[in-house]
């Protein structure tokens, strides 16, 4: 049974008195928060939000959905589209897992919007990094270090983010390019243009999803221009419910129940090779390329051999499903990481 913490003091006490600390927030990434010893879901709530400042501070266990709702009341949002918000993802869990959704394409990821944090280190001390202003070059950028750290440096207590005004209107075009390689070609034609696309994703059938956002009156013209650019690349359709399809993408609704879900960072140039290996192996896992070909979200069924992933040179974070590891990769061998770890977590609790 995991201990439930609802105050900072409880977190400090727990860390000081326990040898093995594994934190769970909302549990939306079940493979990452497996066998937790400390649950911080109770450390929840918005601490400070000044709409005219476009920044907020919330406890780490606050559900992202709750924050998005408050922000939306003021026409604001977290531009990196935090994934799994409808499944209960918390702010701290999103940061610690280093997860950004399709909107990462336009203005940046969770790393680009976090501005300050408070945490409990392995020694049970409370430290703060960053500042609650949108620009700050003083001191080490501890908030950024924690992005993707999977709790290995400490327990997050609260986080401050900058946010942006939400586009008053958005729309999405779907283009059936016929296959991944055609989708990649189409993408390369688009990513150089000053189109201000909010998101660019495609699936294994080569269906390209392009999201545009801005002021309502100019949107139809922009869409028309985009259609012209896309002529000849495949059937184009404007989706009826723009918000719904991106929400579904953010919840990974295409992943079969129980299957493992991996986040695999890639460069667009490697997509052809990835597709080739998958084809040769005759495994055709459900997958989606996101953030303009910088992330592959891959679903890996339990009957497919795990060992094949490294053979395909594929590795990453295993968010969901029953997997033998939490991630595949060697970042823990990094000497800079190891030196930092001795300060944040001297006794190896995390």
């Amino acid at each position, binding site marked *: 049974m995991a201990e439930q913490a609802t105050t900072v003091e409880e977190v400090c006490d727990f860390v000081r008195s326990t040898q093995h600390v594994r934190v769970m927030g909302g549990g939306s990434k079940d493979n990452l928060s497996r066998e937790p010893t400390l649950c911080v879901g109770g450390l929840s709530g918005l601490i400070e939000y*000044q*709409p*005219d*400042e476009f920044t907020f501070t919330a406890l780490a266990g606050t559900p992202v959905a709750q924050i998005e709702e408050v922000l939306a009341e003021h026409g*604001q949002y977290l531009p990196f589209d935090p994934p799994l918000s409808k499944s209960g993802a918390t702010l701290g869990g999103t940061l610690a897992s*280093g997860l*950004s959704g399709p909107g*990462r394409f336009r203005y*940046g990821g969770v*790393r*680009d919007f976090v501005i300050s944090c408070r945490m409990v280190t392995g020694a049970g001390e409370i430290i703060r*990094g960053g*500042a609650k*202003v*949108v*620009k*700050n*070059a*003083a*001191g*080490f*950028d501890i908030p*950024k*270090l924690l992005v*993707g750290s*999977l709790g*290995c440096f400490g327990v997050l207590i609260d986080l401050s983010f900058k946010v*942006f*005004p939400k586009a008053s209107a958005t729309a999405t075009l779907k283009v059936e390019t016929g296959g991944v390689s055609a989708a990649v070609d189409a993408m*390369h034609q688009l*990513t*150089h*243009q*000053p*189109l*201000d696309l909010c998101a660019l994703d495609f699936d294994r059938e080569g269906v390209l999803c392009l999201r545009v956002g*801005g*002021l309502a*009156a*100019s949107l139809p013209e*922009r869409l028309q*221009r985009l259609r012209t650019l896309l002529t000849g690349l495949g059937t184009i359709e404007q989706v009826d419910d723009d918000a719904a399809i991106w929400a579904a993408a953010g919840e990974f609704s295409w992943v079969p129940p129980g299957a493992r879900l991996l986040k695999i*960072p*890639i*460069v667009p140039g490697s997509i052809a090779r990835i597709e080739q290996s998958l084809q040769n192996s005759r495994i055709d896992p459900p997958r989606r390329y996101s*953030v*303009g070909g910088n*992330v592959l979200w891959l679903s890996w069924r339990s009957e497919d051999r795990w060992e094949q992933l490294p053979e395909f040179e594929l*590795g990453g*974070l295993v968010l969901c499903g029953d997997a033998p590891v939490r*991630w595949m*990769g060697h*970042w*823990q061998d*990094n000497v*800079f*990481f190891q*030196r*930092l770890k001795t*300060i944040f977590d001297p006794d190896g609790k995390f």
Partner: protein
Amino acid sequence: MHDPFLQALGGIVPEERLLLGQAELLPYESDGLTAFRAKPRAVVLAESAEEVIQIVKTCHAHDVPFLARGSGTSLSGGSVPVEDGVVIALNRMNNILDYCPIFRSMVIEPGVITAQVTQRASEDGLYYAPDPSSGPVCTVGGNVAFNSGGAHCLKYGMTSNHILALKVVLPDGEVTTFGTASLEGVGPDLTGMFVGSEGLFGIALEITVRLLPVAETFYTVIAAYDTLERAGKAVAMLVASGLLPGAIEIMDRLVMEAAHAAVGVEYPSRAEAVLIVELEGPTEEVAEEKVQLQQILKESGAFEINPAKNEQERLMIWKGRKSAFSAAGRLSPDFIVQDGVVPRSRLGEALVEIQKISNKYNIRVANVFHAGDGNLHPLILYDGRQAGLYERAEECATEIMRLCIALGGSITGEHGVGLEKLVFLKEMYGPEDTLFMHRIRDAVDSARLANRGKMLASAEAPALFSHGLHPLEKQGIIFRN
């Protein structure tokens, strides 16, 4: 050469690239914070990553402090040598190693000049977003060390938001890499931690930057106000309105006069302050946004709104803005430049307080800000030849810095702590968090060799002041934001 350490350096680079003579060392004694100097033991002009690694290893073996130097334009004393240490000059490492327009990224050596990244990418309709005013001379390595900014951070962030990967040599000579060319990663964001570490974590040897497509249309206006405070409030209104301009800048009367004298830009004659706002994006979008913008500017009390009618006029507006501080040399023989940040919603309040401080010390303060980010650059004008004025200007500067801390802001938005703000880091973060940063540094660099004495105060820090122009500013080659 009997010194075994210098002998070892001589084994790494040829004689002509190991500077030891007094005259040769002189140009390396200072940086953009010209009043401050220290004598290095040697300067090594490195030409390759391998040389830098060997030099760092040698320094470590002989327990000699070192620092990297880009173009030496730091405004906070960051590139002032460590006394009797080694300066590793990186200007010659200025090759673009890999450029992938299709993937919008570029791998460069640290000595590449910032503006050259955009220059190279522009033929493909791309650019590198961070735009410090010193861009035509400063290096990307220096920008990485300081997490440098510029006028266009509002929408796209600072240097850190545009660095994808790094190859670095740690202070003991270990070489490691962070990140990849992908926008995303797995594991802690070590790249993000290295950027802004002011050289304390070692030297960046290879930098992978992210490029963006150049906006299709720009719409740039100058709006005139009868008080500085009103201009400050207009910024808060603009930010709150939900528009997301590429840049929002403020210049006050003094700065306008200086800029007018320097580059001939005309400003509305009765204006006590002007706001420069630049919208950027797809043509249709900008066309709609500019209607909103004009509406807000009118409501905020602007008595004149002058849009740039063409690209030439737009560039002129930016020339005036970017020349502003260098031009301040015309207002006063000496000045201190500050870099504090306040919450944007409290900008009006901060401006009133700065005016009060200026009155209290009877010292003129000229104001030019990255207003949209709440990043202030008050210029504290004084004449160093008059007895006591320098000390008074320093007190005035200190009070403004404390004001930023009190308003919940930061002591530096983009120039870094360096030597200049050593004592204030602790005031901003408090003793525990500052001590924690010391411990982090000691874990990475137990011998404290890399840029010793910068950012983290060792004992009682010396009081340091910036006054006067950088030599390159005097020649009109670079401008200060």
